[in-house]
């Protein structure tokens, strides 16, 4: 396994939105989903997940309801709202543009300047 990368500042929100966009998940499930999609290349401090969830819910991008987990336990499930979906889209576009620009800059060779 490669060494885990630390999460970039401000990207956790985006990852959470992406994770729940694929279907309702409880907090622990979100953590697992992100680790699974990233093939364990990202390290997430478990405790930092919840403040982010509460913040996103407070902003109205995700919503929560209590349901039953796979092993028949009560768990709180998060799902994306319509506003959250728009947010994820715009965040994704912004991120892609930013990544292009940064990558372009980093690719630049001395002759191109």
């Amino acid at each position, binding site marked *: 396994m490669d060494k885990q990368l630390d999460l970039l500042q401000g990207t956790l929100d985006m990852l959470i939105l992406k994770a729940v966009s694929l279907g309702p998940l409880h907090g*622990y499930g979100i953590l697992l989903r992100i680790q699974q999609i990233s093939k364990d290349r990202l390290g997430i401090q478990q*405790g930092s997940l919840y403040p982010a969830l509460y913040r996103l*819910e407070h902003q109205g991008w995700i919503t929560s309801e209590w349901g039953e987990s796979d092993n028949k336990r009560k768990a*709180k499930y998060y799902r994306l709202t319509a506003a959250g979906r728009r947010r994820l889209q715009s965040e994704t576009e912004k991120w892609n543009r930013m990544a292009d620009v940064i990558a372009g800059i980093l690719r630049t060779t001395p002759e191109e300047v």
Partner: protein
Amino acid sequence: MTLWSRVRFWCAEILRRSRIESEMDAELRFHIEAYAEDLVRRGVPRQEALRRSRLEFGGIEQTKEICRDAVRVNWIENSAQDLRYGLRVLRKNPGFTAVAVLTLALGIGANTAIFSIMNATLFRPLPYPNANEIVVVWGTQSGVGANRFSAPNFLDVKDQNIVFESVGAFGLVDFSTFTGLGRPEHVQGGSATADFFRVLGVEPALGRTFLPEEERLGRDHVVVLGNNVWHQRFGADPNIVGQTIHLDSEPYIVVGVLPPQFQFSISDYYRPRDLWIPLVLPRSESQRGNNYLNVIARLKLRTALRSAQADVDTIAARLAAEYPKVIPGFGMKLAPLHEQIVGEMRAFLWILFGAVAFVLLIACTNVANLQLARASARQKEIVLRRALGAGRGRIVRQLVTESVLLALIGAVLGVILGAVGIKLFAGLKPVGALHGAVVTIDSTVFGFPLILSLLTGILFGLAPAFQSTSIGLGESLKQAGRTSASAASGRHLRKLLAVSEVALSMVLLIGAGLLVRSFVKLLDVKPGFDTRNILTFPIELPKYSYPDSARQSVFYARAMEAVRGLPGVTAVGAINDLPLTGDSDADGFSIEGSSPPDATNLPSAQDRLVTPDYFRAMGIPLVAGRAFTEADRIGAPPVVLINQSLARHLFADKDPIGQRLKFGPPTSSTSWKTIVGVVGDVRHFGLNIQPSIEIYGPYQQDSLPYNPLNYMNFVVRADGDPSGLANAIVRQIEDLDKELPLPAARTMEAVYASSISARRFNTLLLGLFAGLALTLATVGIYGVISYSVARQTHDIGVRRALGAGHMEILQLILREGLGLALIGVLIGLGGAFVTTRVLSAMLYEVAATDAPTFLGMGLILLLVALLATYVPARRAVTVDPMVALRYE
């Protein structure tokens, strides 16, 4: 938001909060258990799995706290929590709470009282519409600063100016008798042009004010009643308008009644009037130099004071050029009415305000010190809370909430104290400028202590709060168990606070000391007469029944005879201008053979009319020659008495007896008067004012330029306490003339006391504040040293065990306390040296930098500091070394 919806909102908030709490618990528990189960599935033993799961999750409580912040339940929750907790803490420390609240209440109370007075006098606008447009117009003439106006000058200004919306003149008319319902009474009337009321924008309560045509003779027998007179003399009769009343037995028709809030007065210059009659202005050139009118004007809309001044300057210059002989160098000066009314009061109030601000600062310092002492005792609690996940800001907020709570409780108590203070202040009837200003605690005044207490709470709470949370977590955990070694910075802060307290109270003490010293010097001043056992009362004879001085003097002679016959009376005299009452007349005079014949530069003397026994009754010594007798009357050779100052200044070593003087230049038509005696000097204008040169004339001789015998002050000397005589005297006067208003008698001691009442008041008040400051500073020093001793108990024990004697320990502690006090005193002396000059105008024969006062007060403060240090020092000495060593 209505009350009900607010309650519903709060209920919903509380429900929401408890739901969020339980959900958060369940959610985090689920996470940790789910992860643990995954670990168990991977083969980790259950116990170990749970432990690892918790560990990897991180601080659960911190996470919760951040979550709460994220959904904003914290703010309200925390405030409520802080408040509850704060109240509990305060309740559990009743001693601390009582001292802190009382200290703050004193500081805030003093500030509230002084601020209310400032609000009522300086800040609140005058009770006239657009009062800032109203100006007082002064005439100036070469050599005379602020003067009244003559009728022709006033009329010219009124006609020629382009800056006044209206301009009115007013004057005084005293009526000896005023017949309404019941006995005739003396009334103080005002005379005013129709525009006077227009300038002030007065809306009468009944009827109207004057019409312009009522300013002419024949139409002028109309009167506007003041609201008080209307109530007191006419029982607030709603049909008063149109009725006829008699003033000095002449009929006047009532045309209006003024509203209750109308109380026009200018301190030391124009007292409130009972009623008003029209002012009739003769447009006669012979009156050009006769200045007797007061003038006020309302500026036109959007006219600046400066441009108005420029306009009247032009008019004044034109008039001065036109009449160079009559009104040489005539000018005009505009002054805002508000400025005129608050004038002298302003400086004194600001001084008082500075004083109470100092007191409040000292109070804050004290409470900050108390908080600091407590904060170090609470170090353990604070460290524990931080370890459990409370952020530094959270703890600072908790501590500041406590302080603000303290301050608010202090403010409530302070407002009560302030209200009592204002009652006392009003009861002392201090300064003229309070005339008509109603000092109350209104919403403005109430807001003041509120804001003040919030500010002070934050001020004295913030420093200790930051102080006690500034130590790093690890370090403070290490320290928490011990009390002997507290943070050095905390100690320094406490010392700094103690030093500044001492310095602030030093400044106040010196200020008060200077005033007390002036006052004592003033009390030592001999007024020139014997104040004991004298009763005095004024008699005013109406012109219609006593039209000439012959009839007037007959009445006085009979009245004196009647009073002299009363048992216990040893002498009876009368004078027109009683000393220490502010009444006076002055004229230029020349001395036979020594004054140059030209009139321009005559010496001016105070001149008064007296009865023969006046000097004996007052106890004024006859220094040379003889006093007047009843034989000094019209037809007899004209005679005068002079005072010692006149004899000294103008006769030097010559004997004045037998010399002659006359009023006016030597060439004037008046007669030469022979000086028959010299009497002692009297401080006529006040104890603090040097006697002027004075000439006395006998009341029956018409020897002065102006002999107004219609008004005399009787002085009755008794062989004991004179106040019992008052009733008998009133009966005697009543027997002589049933139509006269009843005289109001008072003792000469009361006259003397009221002449220095303003000074007494200032001294008392500043003294009170300085005493307050001294007490608070003493408590402050005591607190710092006690705390320091308690902290050093262990050290002291070690020293004692190593053989240190009582004296050494005592010295150690005293040195610390006195060292602090000395630094404070030195800073305070420096501060006082710079600041006490604001008091200069209030001092009498004491310099603002009076060395004895500075040194004496410094010494007093050091002694008090010594005492405050000695008590805890004694305690330190008596500590058992074994107990001290074990002391933690």
